[in-house]
């Protein structure tokens, strides 16, 4: 789950970092009121989950409250388009924050490194840029240190990273507590990414987080009550938001063939198979292991919320999931809602035969392999 900049900055503030003063507004009037309260020049920043916000026109300077009103009016509701987000996103909120005079920009970040199975600290003097670009073009400009989960981020690890990236001696002392606070925030909110980019040296000599990006591990949301309330807000697609509410793993893919299966690997593979058969997958939906009939019914409801779905494919290979339960769920769904599109069902594994028996005499079209099922549904969904 991606947090907005203002949410990430609130967390950093809670962990003692000198975040610039600011508040979030959803109207030009609100932006003006915040600028008045701050009583100084402000930056107005679109709160959207995308890279390249500045270039897309989502970040503007305002010297007076009236200017803040004008730029907020311009940013709010406008579709912001960047190379990273060619479809663009619409900002519903802006962060209005005191403007600071930046002299130097650094990069600091912490993320999960799957290969070493540790969290890693990354620092670079080349702040303000997309770190992935820096990593691709100047990998030597980024210093990386693995953080021992049992030790935490010690002073010496922070020093190793900072010296490694070529930070001046005078910056080691002020930067170390910033890195450590970032790590404490990262661990406390179960993040899998926390970035301050740029981490800015400003004209009065302080080092502050000018921008912040935090991504939360969704597996840990159950124990992050405060962050869980941000979750629905973080999902832009309304069907994905509804699926999330019901605890169903659903990803919208934009095509016409609805796909439901059990197990992430099998569903991903089914999505690939539909594409290979010449179809355009509408979604990924995993009912998980051991799903009962009502879960299957809910899955059908979710997929059918997408009006572009022209056909529905079930691919179930039962281990702890029972084929007869799935069949019951599909039939229940058909009783409670009107499904006009063709449905192809492939059942294999545990209790598959009983399931297929239940589906006899219904309009559902059986298929014996994943390939056959994909070909059939692609044909029917044309």
């Amino acid at each position, binding site marked *: 789950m991606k947090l907005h900049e203002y949410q990430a900055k609130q967390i950093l503030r809670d962990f003692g970092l000198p975040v610039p003063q600011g508040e979030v507004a959803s109207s030009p009037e609100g932006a003006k009121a915040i600028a008045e309260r701050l009583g100084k020049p402000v930056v107005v920043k679109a709160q959207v989950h995308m890279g390249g916000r500045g270039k897309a026109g989502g970040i503007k300077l305002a010297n007076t409250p009236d200017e803040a009103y004008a730029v907020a009016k311009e940013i709010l509701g406008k579709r912001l388009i960047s190379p990273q987000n060619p479809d663009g996103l619409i900002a519903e909120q802006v962060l209005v924050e005191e403007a600071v005079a930046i002299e130097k920009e650094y990069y600091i970040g912490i993320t*999960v490194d*799957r*290969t070493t*199975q*540790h*969290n890693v600290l990354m620092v670079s003097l080349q702040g303000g840029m997309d770190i*992935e670009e820096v990593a*691709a073009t100047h990998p030597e400009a980024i210093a990386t240190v693995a953080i*021992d*989960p*049992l030790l935490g981020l010690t002073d010496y690890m922070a020093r190793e990273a900072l010296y490694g990236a070529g930070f001046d001696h005078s910056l080691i002392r002020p930067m170390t507590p910033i890195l450590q606070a970032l790590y404490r925030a990262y*661990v406390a909110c*179960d993040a*899998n990414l926390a970035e301050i980019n740029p981490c800015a040296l400003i004209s009065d000599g302080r080092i502050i987080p000018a921008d912040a990006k935090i991504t939360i*591990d*969704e*597996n*840990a949301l159950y*124990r992050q009550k405060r962050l869980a309330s941000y979750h629905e807000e973080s999902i832009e697609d309304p069907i994905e938001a509804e699926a999330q509410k019901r605890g169903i*793993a659903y*990803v919208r*893919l934009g095509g016409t063939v609805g796909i439901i*299966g*059990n*197990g*992430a*690997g*099998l*569903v*991903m*593979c089914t*999505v*690939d*198979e539909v*594409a*290979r058969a010449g179809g355009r*997958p509408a979604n*990924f939906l*995993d009912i*998980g*292991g051991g799903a009962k009939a009502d879960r299957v019914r809910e899955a059908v409801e979710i997929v059918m919320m997408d009006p572009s779905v022209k056909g529905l494919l079930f691919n179930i*290979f*039962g*281990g*702890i999931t029972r084929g007869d339960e799935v069949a019951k769920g599909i039939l229940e769904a058909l009783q409670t809602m009107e499904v006009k599109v063709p449905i192809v069902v492939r059942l*294999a*594994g*545990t209790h598959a035969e009983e399931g297929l028996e239940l589906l006899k005499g219904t309009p559902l079209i059986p298929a014996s*392999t*994943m*390939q056959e099922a994909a070909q059939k549904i692609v044909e029917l969904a044309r």
Partner: protein
Amino acid sequence: MLEAAHAGIPLIVLITEGVPTVDMMRAVQEVKQLDEKSRAQGGPGVRLIGGNCPGLVTNGECKVGIMPGMLFRKGNIGLVSRSGTLTYEIVYALSQAGFGQSTCVGIGGDPIIGTTFIDVLPMFEADPQTEAVVLVGEIGGSDEEIAAEYIQSEMKKPVVGFISGRTAPPGKRMGHAGAIISGGKGSAQSKVEALTRAGVPIADTPSEIPDLIRQVLSKRS
């Protein structure tokens, strides 16, 4: 899980899905230390498989976990996979084609797991009951790329592969917490290329796997 590890249980299968990454990181680190300690004292070590995995089956000997036993046939194909149900699909295809399996290991779909491909591949290389290996990967991380390097430099037995998520969009978590293409890393294409370079034939669909196995085995004999 940690209780079992501290009690000296040498093999722990963690089926649980949805464990926070930070917790897994600590647990894996702890298990690693216990493993080293046990081995240093001449013990059997401690191995964690998973989380978010279906467990493992050695045909005719034992099953730990939740794999549906009726699909398996005894034979000499080893299988290691990041996915549960996709494993069943492939085991079923192998059994139908007359290729039984020696051992099948589901290593799990989370970003941090106790046992990775390169932990299992050497065991298959050393296992006299295994003649060829099927590696089933998916998008996210770089374990398949690392496995490709290992296969190229260390393995004599033939390996065939399958990668799911070829059409998955970047930035979206496809069910498994580990199945996400992020920061330009973890695409299916990169994995397929790495494995192909290492001489591992890659199936476009699971049903092609038995044919690939037939080919690599006939080349060998």
